């Protein structure tokens, strides 16, 4: 975040859904800055509101019961609340998206080339032949062998990893300034995951896109991200440079997330978990959302802790001394 206007600047983004049981706050006060060519990770368990936050920015939350507030500025221009028509040049043109499940993300009845050409022609004046040529280039670039022949294949004729490459090629087809990747590797097997991450890193360098990567996998964050925001139950609980958050995590929830990454050489231990589940979004307490599952919960936690700190922010009432104490005890135990 060293340029004057960040590519993406999100302030106090909130998304809530009116349900029969009451108001569900899926995203509550998210702040995010994404600089040029920067990779920002958003991490949290399933149901922590990461994906909804990203979809709401581009107007992809179609639920009539949803209400979205806050501010989302793309290159300095407010985009929250734009109409579909005003949003169209942004979607797919300046902002590309990659989705979690490549098996269902492509329309099954059209060839992959057709689908890429469709997007290119939506955002540029290229002829069909030119766009097709570009599609072949893109497919080759994302590592699909024999791209000139494969461009006419249908989605079901590709494996999951190859389909995700197609989705990435499509997202990059208009050289977007920002790429939003929603759990791009979750549905893939481990070796394919590594390839896709490597590919995204390489494409960031060649296409110059900033990337927001949503994941629940701290390994992906460590691999890719420059900066990280950790979300719990719709709220940001910790954010900062990747090295700081991964090396010196400050929030008990982040400790738990990092503890849940299995390490080599610790064979006989059970896989570490955070006790309990993410609560139903209806039961999120007024105070700290993580308090019901937190080992270090205090009386103060009935009040909602604000995000404090400069570059490395966190939302927790634990004071610095106590935190260092617990951390060293945790390391000891490990």
């Amino acid at each position: 975040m060293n340029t004057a206007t960040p590519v993406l600047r999100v302030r106090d983004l909130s998304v809530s859904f009116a349900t029969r049981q009451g108001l569900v706050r899926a995203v509550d006060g998210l702040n995010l800055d994404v600089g040029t060519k920067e990779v920002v990770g958003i991490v949290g368990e399933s149901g922590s509101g990461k994906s909804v936050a990203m979809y709401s920015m581009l107007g992809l939350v179609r639920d009539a019961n949803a209400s979205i507030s806050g501010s989302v500025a793309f290159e300095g221009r407010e985009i929250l609340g734009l109409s579909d028509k005003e949003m169209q040049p942004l979607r797919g043109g300046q902002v590309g998206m990659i989705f979690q499940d490549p098996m269902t993300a492509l329309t099954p009845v059209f060839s992959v080339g057709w689908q890429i050409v469709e997007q290119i022609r939506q955002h540029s004046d290229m002829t069909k032949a030119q766009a097709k040529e570009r599609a072949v280039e893109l497919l080759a670039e994302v590592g699909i062998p024999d791209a000139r022949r494969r461009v006419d294949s249908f989605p079901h004729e590709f494996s999951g990893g190859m389909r995700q490459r197609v989705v990435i090629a499509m997202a990059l087809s208009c050289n977007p300034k920002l790429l939003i990747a929603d759990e791009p590797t979750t549905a893939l097997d481990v070796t394919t995951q590594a390839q896709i991450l490597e590919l995204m890193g390489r494409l960031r360098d060649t296409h110059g896109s900033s990337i927001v990567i949503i994941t629940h996998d701290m390994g992906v964050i460590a691999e890719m991200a420059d900066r990280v925001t950790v979300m719990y139950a719709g709220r940001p609980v910790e954010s900062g440079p990747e090295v700081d958050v991964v090396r010196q995590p400050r929030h008990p929830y982040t400790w738990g997330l990092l503890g849940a990454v299995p390490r080599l050489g610790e064979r006989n231990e059970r896989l570490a978990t955070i006790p309990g589940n993410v609560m139903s979004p209806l039961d999120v307490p007024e105070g700290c959302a993580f308090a019901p599952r937190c080992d270090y919960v205090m009386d103060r936690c009935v009040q909602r802790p604000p995000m404090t700190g400069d570059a490395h922010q966190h939302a927790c009432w634990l004071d610095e001394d106590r935190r260092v104490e617990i951390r060293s005890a945790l390391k000891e135990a490990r």
Partner: protein
Amino acid sequence: MVSFVVRRIVSAVLVMFSISVMVFLIFFATPGVNPAARIAGRSASPQVLAQVTAEFGLNRPLPIRYGLMMWHLFFKQDLTSYVNIGVKVIPQITGAAPVTLSLVFGAAIIWLVVGVLGGLVAAANRGKWIDPLIMFGGIAAVSIPVFWLGQVVGLLTQTKFHSVFRWLPGSGYVSFTQSPVQWALHLLLPWLTLATLYAGVYARVLRAELVNAMNEDYVRTARAKGLSERRILMRHALRCSLISVVSLFGLDFGSLVGGAALLTEVVFGLPGIGMLTDTSLQNLDLPVIMACVMYGAFFIVVASAVVDVLYAVLDPRVRVVK
């Protein structure tokens, strides 16, 4: 694709063969029925019975009987009606088929256009007043019995508002070769009556499919690509939703051509296959019944084969099945 079509045709022929065997067994190998009497006609003399028995091999093994029956039915085409002695069966079928085909083809075009348009408009305007309005129209159209609608339409145009509908002819059928204009005029009300029910069904089915499709992941991808809502609906969602409409259409079209348009035919006095089947059933006219069943089965099998080929055109996932 070619091998797919060939395979589909071969299997259609096999299905036809099995149906013919089953129909034959039901009608001519059921214990207690004397097929010779059924073929020879009402009050036939013992000599005629003996002659029929010899000619159709009724005292010979079953497979030979089946072969001889098919030979007489399709190749020699000299099978005669049991009730109207001397009237051959095949010409009755070929006379009735164009009537039914004219009726069903015209109605199908109307119901496809109206149904698809209705489904599209309803799905595109989901949540606005026009969507429930179209869906209510659909359920109303589905609920009105054809015979009632036909009678009412006939009554209104022929009596109460006859001055307005003077240009409409009464019931009956005029062949296309005789007079194309009269053909169309005679069929206009039957077309609309028959199409009403199906247009309602198709509009509702297509709307449901479209609404489902619009919640699919690939539609979200299409939105994220920056496509307009109209393009997403018309290209992505509609194309995927048409697959189930096509399969529905194949079944409906096949069974209607095969005789299920009976009610419409009776109400409007159209001498089609449905009517022929109906009269032959009432008279227990076995040779005619058998021919009608075979004819109906033929169209259902052909329609489902055409549907499968269309499926493969619409859905590439079907195509590669080896």
